[in-house]
């Protein structure tokens, strides 16, 4: 009973807080952000929120966004869609029609972003997707959707290039993929890329969402004697797979995992087992760009992020902050809040930010980024590609 009461009290307090803290200034730019703050994707939702918040606070601290000489405060309207895609769509419509959001940040991941972009397209609201990489999201012919992740193959191709060039003894590839949109798409691309490089795919298995044990799949993997293991999943899947590979003594020359190792939670949870795990992501704190946005250089962004959150930003957090920065640049360039004009400014954008060079292709997906490949070395992710920001050489196992 006490627990119930406490929760209710907390609920009440939070409610009061939420209603009094709402910004009531007149000159505000409202950006709607449907996020999965609860449910299966909530770790991802919270990351995105950290990025958006940093952008909004930095922009407001600098006096807001100048639109035709007049400063506007940024207000981000968050709504939790509980990791439920239809709910994300519903929320997107609500943010546009009820909350009168001027712009939208798309919900997390390719599936939800694709579903929600249909709504913002119909209302003509410029929408930036910070975490959607699949081509299918952008090839719908929509004019108001822009994305800060390059297509999935830009993660896979450099990897296969590095590995096949670096050690000709790597011949046999085993793929274990989570049966989910992004993770399956990466696995399929990997399979094709490996074949194209003359590698032999000795195992290609999918596992269901919610799998609690990978022992059998790993037994099978052990039997296939792979030189390269490529596993996809969310962080919890990958932690478990890494652990169970060690349990059965599977230690390939190359172990690649996407999309966990970029997060510090992965190295914390796997400890020494994280060593030499390779991965690729759309961004990495080791990259160095000199941007024209509010953060300036990548180092400055990293510092600002660390100051606020006490951790090094990862690619999802950076991409979210970049989405805000990019939106701000477009608004300032357009000199108006008119959605069509801001949209045109986004489409015509060609400049450099802390996140990297920003130029959107005809579908709205960013084309100017070169996603880094990295490897956990000495407990930290270090960049091994591209050459311009490379911190160390790729290490092959024995």
């Amino acid at each position, binding site marked *: 009973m006490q627990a119930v009461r406490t929760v209710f009290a907390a609920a009440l307090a939070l409610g009061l807080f939420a209603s009094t803290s709402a910004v009531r200034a007149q000159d505000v730019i409202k950006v709607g952000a449907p996020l999965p703050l609860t449910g299966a994707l909530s*770790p991802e939702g*919270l990351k995105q929120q950290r990025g958006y918040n940093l952008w909004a606070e930095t922009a407001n601290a600098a006096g807001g966004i100048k639109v035709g000489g007049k400063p506007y405060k940024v207000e981000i309207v968050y709504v939790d869609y509980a990791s439920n895609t239809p709910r994300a769509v519903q929320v997107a419509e609500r943010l546009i029609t009820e909350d009168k959001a001027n712009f939208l940040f798309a919900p997390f991941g390719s599936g939800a972003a694709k579903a929600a972009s249909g709504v913002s397209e119909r209302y003509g609201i410029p929408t930036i997707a910070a975490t959607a990489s699949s081509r299918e999201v952008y090839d719908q012919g929509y004019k108001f959707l822009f994305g800060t992740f390059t297509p999935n193959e830009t993660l896979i191709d450099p990897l296969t290039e590095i590995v096949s060039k670096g050690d000709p003894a790597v011949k046999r590839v085993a793929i274990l993929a989570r049966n989910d949109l992004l993770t399956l798409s990466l696995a399929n691309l990997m399979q094709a890329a490996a074949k194209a490089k003359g590698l032999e795919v000795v195992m290609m298995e*999918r*596992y269901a969402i919610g799998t609690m044990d990978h022992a*059998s799949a790993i037994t099978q993997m052990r039997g296939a004697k792979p030189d390269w293991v490529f596993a996809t999943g969310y962080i919890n899947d990958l932690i478990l797979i890494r652990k169970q590979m060690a349990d059965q003594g599977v230690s390939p020359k190359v172990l690649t995992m996407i999309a966990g190792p970029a997060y510090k939670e992965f190295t914390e949870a796997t400890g020494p087992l994280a060593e030499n795990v390779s991965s690729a992501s759309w961004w990495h704190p080791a990259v160095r760009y000199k941007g024209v946005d509010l953060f300036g250089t990548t180092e400055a962004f990293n510092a600002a992020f660390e100051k606020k959150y006490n951790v090094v930003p990862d690619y999802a957090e950076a991409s979210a902050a970049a989405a805000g920065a990019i939106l701000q640049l477009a608004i300032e360039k357009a000199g108006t809040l008119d959605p069509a004009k801001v949209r045109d400014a986004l489409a015509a954008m060609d400049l450099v930010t802390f996140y990297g060079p920003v130029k959107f292709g005809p579908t709205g997906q960013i084309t100017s980024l070169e996603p880094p490949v990295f490897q956990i070395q000495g407990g930290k992710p270090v960049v091994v590609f591209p050459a311009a920001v490379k911190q160390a050489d790729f290490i092959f196992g024995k």
Partner: protein
Amino acid sequence: MIYLQVLANGLVLGGLYAAIAVGFSLVWGVLNVINLLHGSFIVLGSYVAFFAYAYFGIHPFLSAGIAGAALFALGYVVQAGLVNRVIAAPVLITLILTFGLDLILNNAMLLAFSADYRKVNLAHPLGSLELGPIFLPGDRVAAMVLAFLLTALLYRVLRDSRIGRAIIAVRMDREAAALMGVDVKRINAITFGLGAFMAGAAGALLSIIYPISPLNSSLFLGKAFVVCVLGGLGSVPGAMVGGVALGLIESFGAYWLGPEHAITLSFSILLVLLFVRPSGILGKRGYE
């Protein structure tokens, strides 16, 4: 040879599943309550172990006792304060009540601990046992053995203690037990507490194996369901048999049909079993 490894995988996994299900089975069997809080209880046990290790360096194998005790208290209060009020009501009512309570508890954990996955990383990991071509993960085997010992202890308590006899009496016939002077409400609360104890202890043991997050509670709960139906309700041996059976089914299913079909297979078997033998593999023999 590879089948021996798959068999070993299945047995070890089955041991963990049994640990997950024992407390759930006890509550279901004795109180006829499906405790949907069970998954969250396990996760809470994991968090107790996580923090005990992070702040005080207490090994999860020791903090299993602490986690169990804490969860016993929580379980006792939940039953005595809330569930007891509707214990005589039809199935649907208690089911939906524990569902509501689970929403609250899970949400509270999400706020308190966030959904980020954590894991207990032992300073001295147990490594793997190599028996010829077979690898046995040391931590899993150790957790399984400890869970087995706890279960055996529960079994002795139920068989030999006064309270245990009272619990069995309530399970057999609530009215008769009341007439014989058993304080049924108190026994209900103790039983629910014992179920929570087993959940908490299991959660602590699992903290060295699974990433910890409130999001995992429904996975644990799902497994507990299947194990109970496989093994038969309210029986300690039933939960053990059901757990091992599920471990073997998933292990061989994943090996033969591919890992994506392992879950489908276990639910299909659950449906078939409900159809042909609702009392489970061991039948309704209970705690005797």
